């Protein structure tokens, strides 16, 4: 059974869109598959991971468990709308400067949660940053650089310049064990 469809109006990144979608369409599906805004990620699709985080009237919410029709009266901001014609949002700049990412999958959600925090609290404490980002999972970075990036975006510090970790130099691989024996056919 294909189900009913409905006409909805979404206000996304400053633009109005009128869409005909199935009634049960989620906001995430509408963004990605009807509007082509694939920056919002489909991670778990069930409210666990935060990869689908968007801003609704400035508040971070999960688009994968929000009906598109329920987003109609709210101004939605996705990662595509974070930068302005004047350039990147300070949050985006800081995440890049701090190298606060590895695979990048969590980043759109992470940056939007960070933006929502900075909109209500210009100089958050580390505890406030951790709390605001606690609904966004990152499987790669270990979070340290992400927290740092939020502080940098808030103008509370500069990006850390880290010395490469000093460790004993490992012996060159050809000086040990497995000298490759030539295989003679």
């Amino acid at each position: 059974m294909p189900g009913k469809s409905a006409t909805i109006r979404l206000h996304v990144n400053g633009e109005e869109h009128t869409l005909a979608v199935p009634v049960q369409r989620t906001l995430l599906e509408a963004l990605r598959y009807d509007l082509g805004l694939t920056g919002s990620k489909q991670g778990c699709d069930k409210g666990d991971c935060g990869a689908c985080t968007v801003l609704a009237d400035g508040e971070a919410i999960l688009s994968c468990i929000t009906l598109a029709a329920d987003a109609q009266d709210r101004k939605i901001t996705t990662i595509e709308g974070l930068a302005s014609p004047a350039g990147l949002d300070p949050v985006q700049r800081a995440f890049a400067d701090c190298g606060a990412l590895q695979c990048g999958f969590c980043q759109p959600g992470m940056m939007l949660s960070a933006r929502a925090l900075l909109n209500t609290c210009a100089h958050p404490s580390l505890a406030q940053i951790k709390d605001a980002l606690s609904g966004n999972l990152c499987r790669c970075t270990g979070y340290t650089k992400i927290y740092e990036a939020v502080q940098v975006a808030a103008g509370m510090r500069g990006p850390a310049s880290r010395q490469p970790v000093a460790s004993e130099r490992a012996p060159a691989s050809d000086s040990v064990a497995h000298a490759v024996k030539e295989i003679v056919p």
Partner: protein
Amino acid sequence: MMTLPPVEVLRPSSVAEAVEALQKHPGSRVLAGGTDIVPNLKYGMYDTQHLVALRGLSKELRYVRLQNDLHLGALCTIDQLAHDETIRRCAPALAEACSQVAGPQLRRMGTLGGNLCLDTRCVYINQSYFWRNALGFCLKKDGTVCHVVAGGQRCVAAASNDTAPVLLALGATIKIVSPRGERELPLRDFYLADGIHNTVLRPDELLTGIRLPKDAFAKRQGFAKLRTRAAIDFPSLNMAVALEIEKGTVKSVSLAVGALAARPALIKGLDDLNGQKADARLAEELARRAHKQCKPLTNIGVDPDWRRDVLPVLVRRMVLRAAATAAAAS
């Protein structure tokens, strides 16, 4: 990718319209914040054809009113309750519990009514249809056996809502509206020991709000929660205590524990503790009794033996913390 099954969404703009819609469409379900029902619908846990969305009722049902007692509307968000000044003063344990629900996005979306009516949870049910089909369906949906209790005839999926133990311990009542009118019910009579549907709520009834009697404000309150990560995770155990203390002696005490089976448990037989000194011995005794009455199961994917072992430790610490706080302002 998990798509929602086809449904029709009704959007009433008043409580009266909402209960009429529920009555008119048998099998329909309420959609409040959607943070529980949407994932569950994606799992294929319900055969619902109609959702009754409550968004249009937020003006009517999003109130925090202190009029003698504390009245909270069902559509207050969890985040709102965690930060509200009146609640922090009158019911600090409720604010604490709310601040520990899920993660920040979910707290902004989820509501008090949805939390109290949260469907029970189990590692064998909150899974995709494919997963459940592969293992073999269970009693709660589509099947005939329980994977938690061998030979069990009743679903024991866990009540996993963090506000329930607090509101039980504090003696809250709930307001229920149906096409037949309004009724008020002590929360302790709301929950049933049946994981398939663990409340007395009938299909055409709406929980519209709660009332916290003012005598609760003067009680020492405590909440504690065990979970794997400090955010996002549902409780592996949760509990709350309300202590009435006069001149260092207990006048009354109630203790509730959740995340065990379908019904959040009020620990029984505590009346004989009235008159005792509110000291470390009391905390120890409450811990002992809770340990005796609470048996964690394999319905939650965290070792039940370990949960049973830490339960009395958490109770003892929570009671000591609560006893040490000044009574909340009345």
